[in-house]
């Protein structure tokens, strides 16, 4: 165990996998010489050289095309898209090419690649650099979707994503890069698709992802002080989705809340709510309530952004009001 920041865990996972497998290559904008604009990849160029760690032009379609073509022909590329908002300029490569090619080929090709991207708000970057777009990826068949909430998961899940034989989107939350956690020092790999129960409580199930996990945990503490005990599930992955853990908990508590950073409509929580409303309806003691950002672009000013993103207080209030 060593205490690492979330951003240091990114380098740790990339280093671990690049050391063990020379077919792992890494490319993106300002990622090599500069070590990434979020300083999440320093030292890789120095350790693995300019042939394996490459700076690209500002051309996201080229970046993902390079990654896809390389994955079709024996490499395991890790591509960085600087901000997840920029998925919009290379969405065809993600949604139409990378996601669909294996199925359309009837299994003739496999695409072992990872797309890393900085996702989410909370740092006052405004509407075009702060989106939470995990649902963009979740809705496309053929993509696996990972969103770690802490440094240990970042190391293990990014390593797991690189070893996974299918395309995996790894959402790194901008607002978590500076957070620290104890991270296993040696080789550390987590399987995709296993949620994590980060707080146990019998009265309600609260499902959260990435930066909303600490928010939900804080809300759980607030409620605990009032004698309300809730379970907090860190989903970790949206695809594969650990419905066993979610439904198992809901069947025990009878209440389901989702805490989503995304604007409301068609967020990942909607999918989970619909699954529970079909498969656990008899266990529900009351409404399924989604706590999300309102359906708005994210405003830039600190005070306005804070009003839009779910806060521990809003989460606690909503749960309190609903349970009573």
């Amino acid at each position: 165990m060593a205490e690492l920041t979330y951003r240091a865990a990114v380098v740790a996972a990339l280093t671990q996998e690049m050391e063990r497998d020379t077919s792992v290559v890494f490319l993106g904008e300002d990622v090599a010489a500069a070590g990434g604009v979020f300083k999440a990849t320093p030292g890789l160029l120095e350790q693995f050289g300019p042939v394996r760690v490459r700076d690209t032009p500002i051309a996201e379609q080229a970046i993902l095309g390079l990654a896809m073509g390389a994955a079709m022909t024996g490499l395991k590329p890790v591509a960085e898209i600087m901000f997840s908002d920029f998925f919009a300029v290379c969405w065809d490569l993600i949604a139409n090419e990378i996601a669909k090619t294996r199925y359309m080929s009837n299994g003739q090709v496999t695409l072992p690649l990872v797309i890393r991207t900085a996702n989410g708000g909370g740092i006052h970057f405004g509407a075009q650099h702060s989106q939470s777009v995990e649902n963009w990826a979740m809705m496309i068949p053929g993509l696996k979707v990972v969103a770690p909430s802490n440094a240990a998961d970042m190391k293990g899940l990014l390593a797991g994503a690189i070893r996974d034989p299918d395309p995996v989107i790894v959402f790194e939350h901008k607002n978590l890069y500076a957070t620290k956690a104890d991270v296993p020092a040696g080789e550390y790999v987590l399987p995709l698709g296993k949620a994590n129960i980060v707080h146990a409580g019998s009265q309600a199930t609260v499902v959260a992802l990435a930066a909303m996990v600490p928010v939900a945990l804080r809300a759980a503490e607030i409620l605990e002080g009032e004698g309300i005990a809730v379970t907090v599930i860190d989903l970790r992955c949206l695809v594969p989705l650990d419905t066993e853990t979610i439904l198992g908990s809901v069947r025990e508590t009878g209440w389901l809340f989702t805490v989503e950073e995304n604007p409301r409509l068609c967020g990942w929580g909607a999918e989970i709510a619909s699954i529970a409303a079909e498969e656990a309806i008899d266990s529900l003691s009351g409404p399924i309530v989604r706590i999300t950002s309102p359906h708005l672009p994210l405003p830039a000013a600190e005070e306005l952004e804070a009003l839009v993103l779910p806060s521990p207080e809003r989460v606690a209030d909503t749960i309190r009001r609903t349970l009573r």
Partner: protein
Amino acid sequence: MAHSQSSLDQRLALYRTQRRLRLFELRANELYVDGLIRGTSHLATGQEAIATGFAAAMRPDDYTFCTYRGHDHVIARGVSMAAVYGELMGRQGGLMGGKGGSMHLISPEHGALGSYAIVGAHLPIAAGAAWSAQYRGTEQVAVCFFGDGTTNIGAFHEALNTAAVWKLPVIFVCENNQYMEYTPIGTVTAVPHPAADRASAYGLERILIDGNDVDEVLATAERVIATARAGGGPALVEAETYRHGGHSRADPAAYRPAQEVKDWMARDPLPNYRARLVAAGAEEATLEAIDAEVAAEIEASIAEATAMAPPDPAGVANDLWADGGSAWRN
């Protein structure tokens, strides 16, 4: 002249390939009319010399990337015509078991790394295969075919610039058949030659050739592929040609001036090449034998495809993931 380089036997082989591609599509079109093939498809009738010349210059382990108008490019790499007919008919024995269809033919074992139906997408992907070859040091080359209309979309620009900067072994081949779908390329492009006139924007040589002359195509292909294989970087080739038919099954191509069609039909690569071979000393009988063999081969593959079973419903959810399944939950 370019073709003086290749022997008569080689040139008879080029004739045979063009003949196979031509007849494959003419018969495919009839199978549509008969209702044996459904969905859509995009024929390259009249453009065979480009697929033929490049395929002849490629190594078996080189990579081909093409579009929805890709039957020729896939077959020219040696893919079974029966498997392609089967895919067009949507059969279990089709190249992709019916999952891909006419627009997405792919056969990695033949180096055919896919047919892409979103304009421009495969240019950066081809660059990626070339990057992989460069990284692995295999001296493989990727050849990427696309149309004139594709030169106006963003992905073209991103792929060309990045491939040039990284000196990737990729050949970008613009098959300029004069039209996007129904719109003449000249009305939507700022330069007369959509690819050739843009080579300089990527520090590349201006290469404009007659795409209906298989000898010229082959000579050019051999030259640019050799350069790329030797580490000299990418090339952008504009090959001028013409679609004999419409954009797709749905299109009678009524928008084309009669004189334009007439002029281009006079440049049909097949009869012209046949005449050139005769002039070069080929026997009529030899050519007729080739025609007959090709016809027999194609009828046999149609029969084979027609006999294939429909797709197995049980397989519909297979092969989204590498584990063979498509589960998104536990």
